[in-house]
């Protein structure tokens, strides 16, 4: 079965790269452009993994993450947080709120792809 990946980021310039990379890996990809949209998509599509940007209009990635973890149906969704905030306090907060992993912009695409692979492999 193809793994479903949701990419939630408000910046089209990163969406295009992420979408390309995930498709190349052979995942089935959908995108969301703000927090609320991301939450809707997660509820609707039950993706295996979400690439979740922290700074989004409406709901932040932190809030989305928290709501997913609070929902019994969704709580097993894998979440990889993306952020431009590089402070260790932000990383700590993301992990505390339930992110499975955390990656800081700018990142190497190889590293990102590897992290996604590892997370999915650990799950199955």
């Amino acid at each position, binding site marked *: 079965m193809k793994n479903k990946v949701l990419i939630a980021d408000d910046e089209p310039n990163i969406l295009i790269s992420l979408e390309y990379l995930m498709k190349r890996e052979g995942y089935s990809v959908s995108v969301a452009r703000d927090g609320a949209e991301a939450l809707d998509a997660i509820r609707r599509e039950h993706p295996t993994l979400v690439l979740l940007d922290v*700074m989004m209009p409406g709901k932040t990635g932190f809030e989305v993450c928290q709501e997913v973890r609070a929902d019994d149906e969704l709580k097993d969704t894998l979440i990889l947080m993306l952020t431009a905030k590089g402070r260790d306090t932000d990383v700590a907060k993301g992990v505390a709120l339930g992110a499975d992993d955390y990656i800081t912009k700018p990142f190497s695409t190889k590293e990102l792809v590897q992290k996604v692979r590892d997370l999915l492999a650990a799950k199955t």
Partner: protein
Amino acid sequence: MSRAGRQLAVVGGAVAATALLVGLWIALVAVLAWVPLPSERRDALFELLGPGLPAAVVALLVILGLVAAAMPPIYRRWIAAPARLLEQARVLAAGDTPRELDAQEASADLRGLAQVVSELARQRAQLRGDIAAQVEEASRNVEQERSRLAALMSELTQSVVVCNLDGRVLLYNNRARVQFRSLSLTPALADGAELIGLGRSIYTVFDRQLVAHALENIRQRLERGVANPSTQFVTTTRAGLLLRVQMAPVSSTNAEAGGEPTLSGFVLMLDNITSDFEQESARDRLLHGLIEDSRSSLGNMQAAVEVLDDPELDVSMRERFQHVIHEEVHAMSGRIQTLAAQAAQQMKTRWPLEDMRGTDLVAAAQRRIEAAYGLRAEIGEVDEILWMKVDSFSLLQALAYLAGRLVEEYGIKIVWLRLRPADSRAHLDLVWSGQAISSEAMASWEIDPIRVGSEVGSLSVRDIVQRHGGEFWFERDRARQQAFFRFLLPLTSAQEELNAAAFARHAGRPEYYDFDLFQVTGLSRELDERRLSELSYTVFDTETTGLDPSAGDEIIQLGATRVVNGRLLKAEWFEQLVDPRRPIPEASIPIHGITPEMLIGKPTIDEVLPAFHAFAQDTVLVAHNAAFDMRFLQLKEQTSGVRFEQPVLDTLLLSALMHPNQESHQLEAIAERFGVAITGRHTALGDAMVTAEIFLKLLPLLAERGIHTLGQAREAAQETYYARIKY
């Protein structure tokens, strides 16, 4: 009885006693010889002695005469002289001044004794003198140390306030005064004097709990024996400022308690960090914005670039990724541009610069240059009101260095210093006549490490200029055949300039300290039971449009000063003209000298009274004919929203109490009686000062009458008041 009379009595007594003794002796002999004889022998004896009887009587008289003659010297030597000596010795014992005891007519033993007594008295006087001198010396030293400390404090550029454990201020310096002015809610009215003053409570400014907490910290550290038991806290003030407060203990070593230091007060050092804090926050925001935005852009670009490496990418996708890169590069450049523009405004030099008066800087430069190279340095055009923000040490080094190179390489003999404002900065010029220097020389002079004499420093002129966030260049003035180096330097900001000016205005050293307040203990006793000498007073006076407040007369000037611990604090005053919102009667103008023009734009009484109320809090009010002034204040309670509920003393009533037989108790008359010099009479502050001095003269007189406490004084004054009404 007179001395002669006493002598006569003694002589008479001696003669009579002698006569009596001789008579008794004869009678005894006669009886002893006569009684055993038979009667015929008695007759024979009688016949035998009978003819000698007149001779015997004469002999007796002669003896009595001799006794009478011998008595006066005996009296003087054995009776009068010892008595006199005793009196003198008593005087000597009771008094202070040593003197010789007069023992001329006394016996040799007594004279010796008198000498010994005199000698003892002399030794005692000498001892007393030594002790008095030592005490005087010691108190002079203490006074000197206090003055030295106060002088030192007043020169400090940091705000310092010293309080006793009750939180009463017992020392503050000039800087603190300026600082507290900025904490005042009504700085224009009370000048911050309602917040800081000797004997005032620090808790009007700082939260009592906060201070108590900090004190507790210090106590614990003291108990643990920490070497530096000071602590600090940051607090916001009512006026919205952010203050960093350092607190250090004042300990007094108590010998009885085994030398353990006990806490007797605390020192507060205040820093207004409001603007620092705002600047730093802005810088932080800028920095964080930059980091986040750049990370994001770089992330987008890196991802796109790495995808572009994929050989399987088709042409249309390739173009889309290239577009992403173009867009992000463009966005980043734009961001950096705006950032640079913003940062340039905020990027102040981090080097701590000091405020310095321009004229002082130029004078220091002149001395420095002349001392280092022996060339003449003259002061040209200097703007005297400029205040600079400089690191004067390094700047003076740079000036001296440049002058030195002019001497060594161009043989210049005389230079001028010039200082002028230029927009929001200043031009500081080092000018010389004649040859201009080459641009190569200029370049190297600017970047070579500076050296003064044989000392080579680590900084260049450029470094020093950068430290000031300034600029430096070389210009020639062909018309005057002059050349000059120009430093573009920062000025103090307007507010700081004001502070600095206020700082300079109090050049003298007024009464900013009162260490006796260390001894003041809890204020638990009722005011009425407290001693007059230990209370704080606000002595005030008003000038008014007329004498009848209920008929619409109004206050046009309010002046006040403070008396704390029996001392008039001339530096702590309140003076304010007041817009009466009504015309001033022409007839009253010659009395108070206040014209309608002077009151234009002044605050109204409803604005002034709250500030005065704050100034007078925790004190007893004193005024001359206080009932009059109080009536004006009371009629304004409704509109101003403040009530003056503290006790009031009236110098007029107190004076009437002390000198009931004097005709006049006008302020001038009392002042003359007490020898108080009258200056600035009929301004509210001038009269308040005179009243305060009179009040201080009245205090000891009241004490002589047994009036020691506030309650006693009020009661006594009340009685005279009724007495006056009756007459």
